[in-house]
């Protein structure tokens, strides 16, 4: 298959589901509005356009339903997403998602990756997509490329602790430090 056919094929995949994709993303508002988050039709057009660009950059094609609604449903209850940063955060998360599907060699399912991303976003990363991309996911991707498959049993939850290189706060460390400061 030549380069032109490849490009044509990916364009066909994108255009084939575009209208339904816009409608499905708008549909998410029914659920997300209870978290104070809604997307305007212009926001959705932007998200879909960014998705198309990201898929092209990551050399991927979406062949059925879009991942966008799934990202939205996964992250809409985040403590770190507000109306001020909703659209740009979803765009960023989408970029990170496709990038790491490639980095993890498609060994991980969409659901497992989204669960991992959300869990780390809310805890270790404190809502920082850059930290999510540059640290947690990077380390996790290395483990997967080396053959780790433990996430299959956990659906992507509670996986990062065993790979985390940073000493983090827990109750004992907190009390010890507090004692040191007060004494």
């Amino acid at each position, binding site marked *: 298959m030549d380069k032109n056919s490849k490009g044509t*094929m990916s364009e066909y*995949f994108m255009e084939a589901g575009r209208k339904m994709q816009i409608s499905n993303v708008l549909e998410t508002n029914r659920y997300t509005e209870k978290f104070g988050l809604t997307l305007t039709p212009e926001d959705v057009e932007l998200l879909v356009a960014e998705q198309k660009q990201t898929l092209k950059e990551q050399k991927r094609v979406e062949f059925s339903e879009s991942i966008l609604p799934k990202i939205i449903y996964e992250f809409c209850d985040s403590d770190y997403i507000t109306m001020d940063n909703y659209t740009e955060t979803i765009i960023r998360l989408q970029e990170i998602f496709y990038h790491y599907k490639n980095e993890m060699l*498609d060994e991980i399912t969409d659901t497992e990756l989204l669960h991992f991303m959300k869990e780390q976003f809310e805890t270790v990363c404190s809502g920082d997509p850059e930290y999510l991309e540059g640290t947690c996911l990077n380390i996790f991707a290395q483990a997967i490329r080396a053959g780790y498959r433990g996430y299959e049993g956990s659906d992507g939850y509670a996986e990062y602790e065993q790979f985390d290189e940073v000493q983090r706060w827990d109750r004992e460390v907190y009390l010890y430090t507090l004692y040191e400061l007060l004494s």
Partner: protein
Amino acid sequence: MCRLNFEMEELIPVVAKLAGQYTGFESTSVTYERAEQLMEAVLYCIREYENTGTETLLPENILAEEAYRQGFHLVQEKAQELRKLCNSLTPFFRTYGNICLKDTILKGIPEFFKWYDMKFAPMDTIITLDYPVPADLSAYSGVDTVYEYIKIIYQEQRFLQTMDASYIRQVLEHSLGDYENSVENLGNAVFLNLMVHIMLKKPLETAGFTESERQQIIKWCEPLTYDELEIHLAELTVKFAETYWQRDSDITAYLKSHVKDVAVRIKNGQF
């Protein structure tokens, strides 16, 4: 040439469905490379459907999905036919000590059956068919390549086993020297020996030829062009096949596939 001219819009849903099956419906996207592979898989099956019964008319309004489904069924059938052919070859298969033949058939073919992915990569042949055969199989791919290849090997074995194994080894040693490590086609060497014997009207008792016999053949071939010699050898081949295989068309076709190369060797005195 594709007689069924499906547009991209018709093929994409078929590829999308296959992609879903490939990911176990657990991913909404695949890489370009994977999508390309799955498109090739769909096209391979559609071509299989197209190539069945080239004499008959294909339904004009067949959907891509249906053409793919029927083509995939044909790929499955071809793989089963290949397995049956291999099973019927195995009991009488001989390597005559040739390592390349042994490795290709006894090691390579089982690996093909183990790893051939008829659903998601039917176009991949997977194995390298290192033992050469007298045919250009470059137009084939996937199970078709291996099927055509084994058909040739089957006829070659039928041909070789009309002669005593020790005689075959003599001929091979005379023609190829270290025939056990050779990557030449064994049937070609034996057929060349056979043709020269027939031209000399010499019984097939000894391998090799005297210098006087060689000069006799070279002198006889001198006024002929390569094409004329080829025609003569083809006639001899047909007569030989009629005598020993009662006009068996498969073995006749196999023997004739050597004629062009053997004509060149005989004319050049390379025997």
